[in-house]
């Protein structure tokens, strides 16, 4: 029982971490109808910037406080992501107004390659460390109820909290503000949005910026867990079933989807895996998402796919 709880909790936390990456996808999809293939690369890029600057700043300035160095590195990395967002809009998106999803998807792929190359050129391709002082040792709760207690990973717990806050803030932003509405309008129809005076350029910079910051937070947390290295970009693939299950257009969906996928894949791996030789969690996550889709083809919270004649 204690173990079941542990697995469940582990799944929930892992799910929250996926949500954080998934959120980036949702943001950009929601605001421009683009499936942003570069999200993984953005996470990597942002994390690399953060890791290297938190290492460089003490060297350059002699600041010895970890907190100060980290805050400065975060700010610089955030600024870099802003510049990236602006460049993406200026060099790419602006020229692809009103194009089909597949075209834009390809463009984000080009961006992904570019960022991967640029990130490694600027910041190197070794494993780097982000140390934001997350506690690494586990804690045990409910020791009275279960022998040995239930293990909880504090680092995951903090990460989950940060993810939750971020998601809540973004949900409010989308649902309640005029900009949020404009973003949704842009996703539906670029041209019509332009025709009523929504400045696409500015909207896109804003969205990519927000997505950049979300990528930075995701990169920071994943990076502090795993170390910053090229493979960080591949967490995007783990986050994909989360986005789809939650619905490409739903911010809360990213969270719920994350929790379901997280729990589902951990439980399946731990309880079913041993019978079939293990290693099933990744396809199980996808099959799980698929199972939900068969009932709700637009994901749990996604906007209904409209086809009307």
């Amino acid at each position: 029982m204690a173990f079941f709880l542990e697995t469940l909790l582990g799944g929930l936390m892992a799910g929250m971490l996926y949500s954080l990456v998934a959120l980036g996808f949702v943001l950009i999809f929601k605001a421009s109808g683009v499936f942003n293939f570069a999200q993984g690369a953005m996470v990597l890029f942002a994390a690399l910037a953060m890791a290297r600057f938190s290492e460089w700043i003490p060297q350059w300035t002699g600041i010895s406080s970890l907190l100060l160095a980290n805050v400065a590195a975060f700010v610089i990395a955030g600024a870099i992501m802003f510049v990236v967002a602006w460049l993406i809009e200026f060099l790419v998106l602006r020229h692809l107004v009103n194009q089909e999803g597949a075209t834009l998807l390809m463009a984000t792929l080009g961006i992904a390659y570019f960022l991967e190359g640029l990130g490694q050129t600027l910041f190197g391709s070794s494993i780097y460390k982000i140390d934001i002082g997350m506690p690494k040792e586990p804690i045990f709760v409910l020791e009275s109820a279960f022998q040995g207690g239930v293990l909880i990973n504090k680092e995951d717990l903090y990460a989950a909290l940060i993810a939750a806050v971020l998601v809540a803030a973004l949900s409010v932003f989308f649902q309640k503000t005029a900009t949020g509405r404009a973003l949704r309008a842009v996703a539906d129809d670029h041209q019509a949005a332009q025709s009523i005076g929504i400045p696409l350029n500015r909207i896109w910079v804003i969205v990519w910026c927000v997505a950049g910051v979300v990528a930075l937070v995701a990169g920071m947390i994943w990076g502090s867990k795993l170390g910053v290295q090229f493979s960080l970009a591949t967490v995007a693939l783990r986050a994909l079933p989360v986005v789809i299950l939650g619905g490409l257009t739903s911010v809360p969906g990213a969270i719920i989807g994350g929790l379901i996928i997280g729990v589902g894949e951990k439980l399946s791996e731990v309880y079913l895996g041993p019978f079939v030789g293990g290693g099933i969690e990744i396809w199980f996550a996808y099959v799980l998402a698929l199972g939900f889709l068969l009932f709700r083809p637009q994901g749990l919270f996604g906007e209904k796919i409209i086809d009307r004649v």
Partner: protein
Amino acid sequence: MDTQKIVLSVNGIEVIYNHVILVLKGVSLQVPQGKIVAILGGNGAGKTTTLRAISNLLQGERGAVTKGSIELRGERIENLSPADLVQRGVVQVMEGRHCFAHLTIEENLLTGAYTRKSKAEVAANLEKVYAYFPRLKTRRTSQAAYTSGGEQQMCAIGRALMASPSMVLLDEPSMGLAPQIVEEVFNIVQDLNQKEKVTFLLAEQNTNMALKYSDYGYIMESGRVVMDGAAADLASNEDVKEFYLGVGGGERKSFKDVKSYKRRKRWLA
């Protein structure tokens, strides 16, 4: 016409789609302040393209203005973004509705007021649109995609009005609307024109209505302006009567007895 103040003047523009398809071959037209100007012409004449060129929505269609100039109150506007134009009070109602499918009718309308910062003004505009189109009010919470064709058309027009424009480019506003509503739409146009001094440039197939309500008209054929003149003059022109009003030879012909041969248009000769 030169006595009036010209808000918009299009001077000999050429438009090419996809780098190869030449669609507009030197179109010029003027829209005087506070007037209603109609562009008439058959399918494929280039009406929509002209409006897109003015509102700078060509880019998304991979089209470009390659020659000529467009001026709004003396300012060259070819290089502005559509959003800049809306800031300057020029709004286009696109052909084929283009409502935001996932947004509700009311959200669609509110997005139309994106450039308006005053809450009171937005609320007032919303009320005004609902007053013009009561049908929209009853459907305000439906997602636009699930409303009928005509409701979407009303939504698109209403959405443009939400921006408190000083000039509206209307592309086939009457399409798909019931006759009563068509009448209403034109009444609204007239209303806004007279009361709020909004200038209109409209591309219309419903020539009858268009000429009845507008001050001046241009007739386009295959990318060129072939005829222009005061609306009343056009309405009494024999060719226009025959081809656009369906009343050639004085009598309105029944659709049942249309001849299966066609007379060549004089200006194509």
